[in-house]
Structures are given as structure tokens and as C-alpha cells.
């Protein structure tokens, strides 16, 4: 006496026939499948249900027919077609490269990802550096165009000309010095000796 079956229980038969017993989704609430139990359930069904046995046999038979049919289809293709295929393949195969350049190319091919990642990272750092740099140049640091502006110390530019030097209550001395660093003018003031209250 065969028992009623549905697709779900026949799915278990299929797993059994395919040697995959135990993997039926939803078989256990927690997803853990006891393979031995599942196999035992199917084996018990096969033992008492002749329809189940025929279904397993039918699964295998369909498999044999499909496999046999496709293999016979492949066997029916003439050798000449595959020979022509090989010639086309052979024409398109890349020649094995030799030499330094070929080795470099192969190295690049192999590590292309790393190289590209490194290049992109370096580019990003450079871009950030450009974006984040100060918009006005530091006056203390000569820029590229600083050479066009003469910023030498005053002493190096010209000798100071002193028209008059009024030193009430004292005396003064002007000393001009010339050396390899340029011209220096020293003004020396000396107050007159005075005593308060006298």
C-alpha cells in the first residue's frame, strides 16, 4: 500500500537518490539537519513504499537519459569540426613572452591591483596636499617669484645720506663702514656731562 506523497517529501527522495540526504531547507526549525535521521526516514519510506522506490529509480533513469543523450550529441560532432576549432584556438593563443620586458609585464599583470591601489593612494595624498596648502605664501619663505623683488637689507641697498644731525646737549659722530657685507652707517650720540642743581 503506497502512501500519499507531495513534492516536499519527494524532494527528500531526490536528495537521497543524489546522495545529499540531510540538506533539505526548512527540515528543522533551527536549520540543523540530522543527516542520519533524515536518511533513516527516507530509507524507512523506501522499505515500505513501492512508489517511493520507483520514484528514486525514475530520478536515476532521467539522469541516465539526459547524460547519455548529451554525450551521444557530443560524439556525433565530426572530428573535423573540433580540429578546425583547435586551429582557431591556436591562432588566438598568446605567444609565451620572454625577456625582461615580458617578466615586468607579467609581474605587473600579477600585481596590477596592488600597483593601481598604490598609485591611487599616492595621487590622493598629492591632491590633498595641494588642496590643503595655504592660499597665501608665508612672507618669511621666499616664493618662486620672490627673486623678482629686491628684499635685501637696507644697508645693502645704498649708503645713507645724512643732511644734518642736531644733537642739543651733546655731540654726535657718524661712522661709515664698508666691508664685504656692504655698507654700514653708525651714528654715535654722546650726551654732554651735566649735574642737576648746579
Amino acid at each position, binding site marked *: 500500500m*503506497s502512501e500519499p*506523497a*507531495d*513534492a*516536499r*517529501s*519527494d*524532494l527528500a*527522495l*531526490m*536528495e537521497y537518490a*543524489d546522495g*545529499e540526504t540531510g*540538506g*533539505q*531547507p*526548512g527540515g528543522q526549525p533551527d536549520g540543523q539537519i540530522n543527516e542520519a535521521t533524515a536518511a533513516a526516514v527516507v530509507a524507512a519510506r523506501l522499505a515500505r513504499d*513501492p*512508489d*517511493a*522506490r*520507483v*520514484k*528514486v*529509480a*525514475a*530520478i*536515476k*533513469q*532521467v*539522469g*541516465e*537519459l*539526459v*547524460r*547519455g*543523450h*548529451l*554525450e*551521444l*550529441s*557530443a*560524439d556525433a*560532432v565530426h572530428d573535423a*569540426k*573540433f580540429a578546425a*576549432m*583547435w586551429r*582557431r*584556438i*591556436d591562432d*588566438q*593563443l*598568446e605567444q*609565451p613572452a620572454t625577456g625582461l620586458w615580458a617578466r615586468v609585464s*607579467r609581474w605587473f599583470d*600579477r600585481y596590477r591591483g596592488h600597483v593601481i591601489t598604490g598609485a591611487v593612494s599616492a595621487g590622493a595624498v598629492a591632491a590633498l596636499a595641494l588642496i590643503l596648502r595655504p592660499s597665501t605664501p608665508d612672507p618669511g619663505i621666499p616664493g618662486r617669484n620672490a627673486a623678482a623683488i629686491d628684499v635685501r637689507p637696507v644697508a645693502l641697498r645704498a649708503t645713507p645720506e645724512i643732511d644734518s644731525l642736531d644733537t642739543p646737549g651733546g655731540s654726535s659722530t657718524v661712522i661709515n663702514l664698508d666691508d664685504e657685507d656692504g655698507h654700514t652707517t653708525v651714528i654715535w650720540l654722546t650726551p654732554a656731562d651735566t649735574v642737576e642743581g648746579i
Partner: protein
Amino acid sequence: MLGAQRGDRDAFKTLFERYHRRAYALAFGVVRHQDDAMDVVQDAFIKAHKYLDKFEGNASFYTWLYRIVMNLAIDHLRKHRRVKPVELDETRFENDGDDPLLPRILGGNPGRALLDKQIRGRIDQALDELSENHRSVLVMRELEGLSYEDMAQAMSCSKGTIMSRLFHARRNMQKRLLDLIDNPSAELVDDLTGGRVGDADDTPANDEAPSQRTPAARSRP
């Protein structure tokens, strides 16, 4: 394999000669068109050669090759889709979840059945009528013996989806073939019974031991 990886073309040609028909059978099973299958196999070998240095030898060369063939075949189907793909079978599974396998098998010997043009024509027709996903799973399983897990990886879907596709692909194949057996031509009856028309042993029966009715059509390579 190592010779091919070092650039030895003769070694690669040896690999081609060893596996081209098997690769073709897989491609043909999926794309269902001879010239398209030839294109897929050709592209697969070119691609395999291009990336030989990435083959690490953890699996056999053919295991690696069939993944390339399978990917290219599925890509080919997507690019050259001749009819709008409708996953009728999967939809029906959701709405008709109680449709079980038929408790019947073909009479006679599957190996002998494959000699019959009607049966092979019906297998072709049934494969054509399967959805691309169902057919791909069926071919991977029956031709290559892939596990559910491997097929799930190859098709980027869950193991449950693979089981559903395989179940319905098989059931639909079974229905198609039984339709033919239920209304056989005289020629088909002769082919299936070996000329012993009326021999009760070769008529389909539900309660016969399965092992007596499923001789291997062909040993797996």
C-alpha cells in the same frame, strides 16, 4: 598541465584533445545550439589558456574548465536570448507545491532507449522547453555530477533554489518522456522491447524493484 602553464602549446593541445567533447556536451546541454556550443567551447579554451597561470592545481583542470564553460554558456544565454525567459516552472512550484514525482519509469533499457530517434527527439524537446536555470542545473547535475552546494556556488543562488530547480527539471523531463511512452509508435515499442511486443516484463509497472529497471545507459567518464 605544468607544461601548458609553462607555455608549451603541445601540452595545452593535449588538454584540449582530452576534454573538448566533454566540454562541448556541457555547453550544448545548456545553450541547446550546436554552433553556439562550439563558440562557447572555443572561447572557454582560449580563456583557460589566458589564465593558466592563475590555475593553482587545487582541483583538476577539467573542474576548472567546466566552470569557465558553464559561466560562458550562461553568459551566452543572457546575451543571445531568443525568447523571453519566464521561470514558469519555479512559479508553478510556489503555487503547486504538492505536485510530486511520478511513480513511473520508462520500460526497457535506457541505453537502448537512447538509440530511438523519437526518445532522443523528445529529450531534446524537453530540454529546450525547460527554463534556462532549470536546464543548467539539470545538465550540471546529470552530466558532471555536481553537488547541490557546488551548483549553488556556480549559479550564485541558494542550495534550496538549486534543489527546487533540479526537482522540477527532472519531473518535467519525466512527464515529457512518459507522454511519449503512453502513446508509443510501433517503432518505439519495438525499440524499447527489443522486438518482443506484448512481453509483459517490458511494460512500465509501478511496483517492480527499481534496480531491475535502471541499468546504466553509459558509464560516467
